[in-house]
């Protein structure tokens, strides 16, 4: 076992240890049980409800819950759009940055409201400190809290019988933000500053270069402008809320966002923390923690082989660079293009798979320079629908929709009415589940096909051929599944990609949310049927295997043809003939 394997094991092990305490705490938050933070936060919570006219005890039917989600997200979208367009006339713009263009502002507003954090811009050159804080940091919190609220509503639908309501969105949103995301972010932000992540309201600092350089234009360069900003506060929530949008262009590869191996370890842990722990939250909320553990095992069983594939591909390095003049030996061997020395190959490959499994999308190495099979692991994890850990909230509700499909498939095999957690799965539930699962892939493949068919789409490709197809496929896979990471070689800041991508992000987020709430409403209204001899228990290795097979089969059947033309061809091209 190399140190690289050891640090991967350490990170996954520590995340697993946090599942029960954090998951249990989150269940208390959504079930309005007392928590240790009540003394500090309950008065704030009450003030929010009082001033906004929310009656916290009054629950909503699924239609009203969905309406509240959409209304709140529309307000968030409008606010982010306006702040970007108006930033030169607003305070905290020490760099004197101009207004963001309309198509880019549209794309960025949807991106952050939908918890995607696709970035067609470089933060340090485009956005003022005020835009980073008041527009983006806020969305990092509330888009995450939105996903967690929808998850809580679906869990209530599964837990209740003959019920007409799913909870109150305003309460779930507020409590998720105040009790879960804010305290964790505060602690992580300060830990990151201790490692060197910057946190300042100044624009920049300037250094005199020790060895003056020459620019590409031949002009001498004697100074280096170091960008500052309120970075640590945003980096903390960008990881915890599976957002992923960086303060600086290089995202978590930038030394001011991720300066040390320890900061990388903490940020990686933060990426997996809530998506893993919410499995236990689900188990607690439906009154049977074994159900939650089974879901966590399913996620892990899909994640680990793809992680191993990426680590192996990146460690093996690029055969095109094999030469007696170059030493590519461990630990700094392998494919170091686009990677940082302080992280090395193992921590970079772990990050690349964790950030695409969880729908985070921050990167500590450039994904466009991954080996074809490393990029394939990242692509496929997103294409599974962001349900392997997935986004905060969204990963779990996505996986539960797959669980309903899995019991249906099992029911077909033995000829009995399928049940999940005592709820009969009937035609309406199956229609909703199918529509949740099938629409995002349709969107991803349709948009990618359109992009490679149109000159506006092809013009942005850096490297024509299989790699260029991978770039386009990656872009729409990332946006359609609300991940946000990118193959950076694609020039995505064009009206074509900004607009089509914005639509893909919006549909990829709100379509599953509305249908998941409808599903929660339908399940909550049902009576509970006692388990009979034909009931398939859903916490057993048999069900775990079945669910893994359903998730992988749906993803593979949909995407293998496209993957074969992109990363797989590129991989075969690299092999010596």
């Amino acid at each position, binding site marked *: 076992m190399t140190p690289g394997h050891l*640090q991967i094991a350490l990170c996954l092990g520590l995340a697993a240890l946090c599942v029960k305490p954090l998951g249990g705490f989150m269940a208390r938050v959504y079930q309005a049980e007392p928590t240790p933070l009540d003394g500090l936060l309950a008065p704030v919570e009450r003030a929010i409800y009082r001033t906004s006219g929310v009656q916290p005890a009054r629950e909503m039917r699924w239609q009203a819950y969905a309406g509240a989600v959409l209304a709140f997200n529309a307000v968030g979208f409008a606010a982010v759009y306006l702040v970007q367009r108006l930033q030169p006339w607003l305070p905290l713009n020490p760099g004197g940055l101009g207004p963001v263009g309309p198509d880019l502002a549209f794309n960025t507003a949807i991106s952050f409201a939908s918890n995607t954090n696709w970035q067609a811009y470089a933060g340090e050159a485009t956005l003022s400190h005020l835009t980073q804080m008041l527009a983006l940091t806020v969305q990092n919190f509330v888009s995450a809290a939105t996903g967690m609220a929808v998850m809580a509503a679906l869990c209530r639908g599964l837990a209740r019988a003959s019920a007409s309501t799913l909870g109150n969105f305003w309460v779930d949103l507020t409590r998720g933000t105040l009790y879960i995301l804010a305290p964790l972010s505060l602690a992580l932000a300060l830990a990151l500053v201790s490692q*060197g992540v910057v*946190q300042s309201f100044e624009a920049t600092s300037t250094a005199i270069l020790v060895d003056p350089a020459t620019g590409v234009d031949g002009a001498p360069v004697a100074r280096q402008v170091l960008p500052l900003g309120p970075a640590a506060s945003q980096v903390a929530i960008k990881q915890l809320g599976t957002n992923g949008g960086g303060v600086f262009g290089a995202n978590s590869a930038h030394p001011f966002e991720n300066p040390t191996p320890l900061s990388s370890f903490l940020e990686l842990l933060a990426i997996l923390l809530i998506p893993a722990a919410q499995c236990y939250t689900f188990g607690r909320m439906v009154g049977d923690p074994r159900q939650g553990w089974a879901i966590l095992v399913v996620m892990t069983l899909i994640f680990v082989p793809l992680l191993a594939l990426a680590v192996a591909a990146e460690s093996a390095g690029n055969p095109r660079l094999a030469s007696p003049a*170059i030493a590519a030996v461990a630990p700094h061997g392998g494919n170091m293009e686009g990677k940082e020395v302080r992280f090395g190959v193992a921590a970079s490959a772990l990050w690349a798979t964790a950030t695409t499994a969880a729908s985070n999308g921050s990167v500590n190495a450039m994904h466009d320079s991954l080996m074809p099979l490393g990029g394939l692991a990242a692509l496929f994890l997103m294409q599974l629908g962001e349900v392997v850990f997935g986004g905060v909230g969204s990963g779990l509700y996505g996986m539960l929709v797959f669980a309903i499909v899995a019991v249906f498939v099992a029911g077909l095999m033995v000829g009995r009415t399928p049940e999940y957690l005592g709820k009969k799965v009937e035609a309406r539930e199956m229609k909703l589940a199918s529509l949740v699962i099938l629409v995002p892939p349709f969107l991803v493949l349709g948009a990618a096909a359109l992009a490679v068919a149109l000159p506006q789409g092809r013009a942005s490709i850096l490297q024509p051929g299989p790699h260029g197809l991978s770039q386009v496929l990656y872009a729409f896979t990332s946006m359609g599944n609300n991940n946000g990471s990118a193959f950076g070689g694609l020039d995505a800041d064009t009206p074509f990609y900004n607009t089509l991508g914005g639509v893909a992000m919006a549909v990829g987020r709100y379509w599953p949310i509305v249908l998941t709430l409808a599903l929660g409403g339908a399940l909550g209204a049902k009576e509970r049927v006692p388990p009979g001899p034909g009931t398939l228990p859903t916490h057993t290795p048999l069900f775990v295997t079945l669910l893994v097979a359903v998730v992988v089969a749906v993803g593979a059947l949909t995407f293998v043809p496209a993957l074969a033309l992109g990363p797989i061809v590129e991989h075969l091209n690299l092999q010596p003939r």
Partner: protein
Amino acid sequence: MQVRPALVVFAWLSVLTGVLYPVVVTVAARGLFPSQAGGSLIREADSVVGSALIGQPFDDPRYFWGRPSATAGFPYNAALSGGSNLGPTNPALIEAVHARVDRLRSADPTNPAPIPIDLVTASGSGLDPHISPEAARYQVDRVARARGLRPDAVRALVLAHVEGRAAGVLGEPRVNVLRLNLALDALP
């Protein structure tokens, strides 16, 4: 019906998470970790010579060279971070790597050792402050010759600047190029 809560709750959460939270973190960071919060700057004789976390371009044979940087404008342009984004099959990547090999070889023609890969591939941020200990050792003879120093003295300086894995497990061993070069300049 949902409009009032949507606006008011949004306003509350914007103030709490978009203003109060970053301000609290900034104040606490300034109190607890002032140097880190301000960019870990290295000062010499009242002027800032760099950040301990951000690499700088070096191409004088008297200095250790860092990793190739693909930032726009000039290498190690900290105002525009980013990688090359070249894929593994891109001919431009292969050409760039071979050009870097040739340049390192011509700066040190008598060195037959193979060149560590991190010295010929661009970093993700374009600002990587580190090289591997192997990449530093590869450059010892060239730097010693250019400065008229004994290679052993330079080698000892490199060894003193090797940072190990955190807790023996996390990350990879590395050498901070700017710190090493500042220490070289400070040699008597």
